[in-house]
């Protein structure tokens, strides 16, 4: 990813609270159906998988197709049982793996 993804979490989280995690990745999400000026098909290049784990346990995942808009925005929820690290992973067609580790301020 050209720019690091943006992740927004609440500033402070109570134990047991269900919070929304907002993520925004920078990606062209090229569908593979478009042609360039010379008539050649532009190869597909999308983020196909997004995974969120909290302390090593999977919380949420998404399998994305070309029908997801460019610069995919994904917001999901997490039940915070206690302090821990949230790890987010984006995988794209070029094999690039983008990881974001998000500290959560659990009070």
């Amino acid at each position, binding site marked *: 990813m050209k720019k690091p993804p943006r992740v927004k979490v609440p500033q402070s989280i109570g134990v047991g609270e*269900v919070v929304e995690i*907002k993520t925004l990745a920078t990606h062209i999400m090229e*569908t593979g*159906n*478009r*042609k360039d000026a010379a008539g050649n098909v532009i190869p597909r290049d999308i983020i196909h998988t997004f995974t969120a784990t*909290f302390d090593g*346990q*999977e*919380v*949420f*995942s*998404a*399998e*994305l*197709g*070309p*029908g*997801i*808009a*460019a610069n*995919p*925005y*994904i*917001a*999901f*929820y*997490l*039940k915070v*049982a206690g302090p821990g690290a949230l790890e987010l992973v984006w995988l794209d067609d070029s094999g690039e793996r983008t990881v974001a580790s998000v500290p959560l301020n659990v009070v």
Partner: protein
Amino acid sequence: MADASRILVLDRRNFVAGAGAAALIGALFAAIPKAGAGERSAKFEAALAALLAGATPKDGGIEMDLPDSVENGAYVPLALSVKSPMTAANHVKAIHLLSTLNPRATVATFRFTPLSGKARITSRMRLAKTQEVVAIAELSDGTFLMGTRTVDVKIGGCGL
């Protein structure tokens, strides 16, 4: 002024013919169904059948927050949610998002766990043209819920 006088000279025969033509055009427009409404591609039907694997989904239960009409199909905001206690015994396993007239029927699959706490997802999708958007929720007891929303698209999501 010459034009006005020509309009006024309208004999009965011409008038009847004109009225008939107008009625015909009106009927033709009425016969064209609202573009995309209810139309579903073979790809969509195949994807839906593969997903349900013979099960019959229950209608409703999925809250689909999508605009009724969008200017630009390249960027359609959406939120999907299913009310669920999200416990190990009773939770939403996944919400599948399908399009009925995009070149690819499967848009995305969102998978939840009891750690999600809430089966709600917000994202943005592409729509090639006016069509129905279908969401299928897969529950932990093996049942399915189905929701449908029609979105009117003015300009299609380019080169889907």
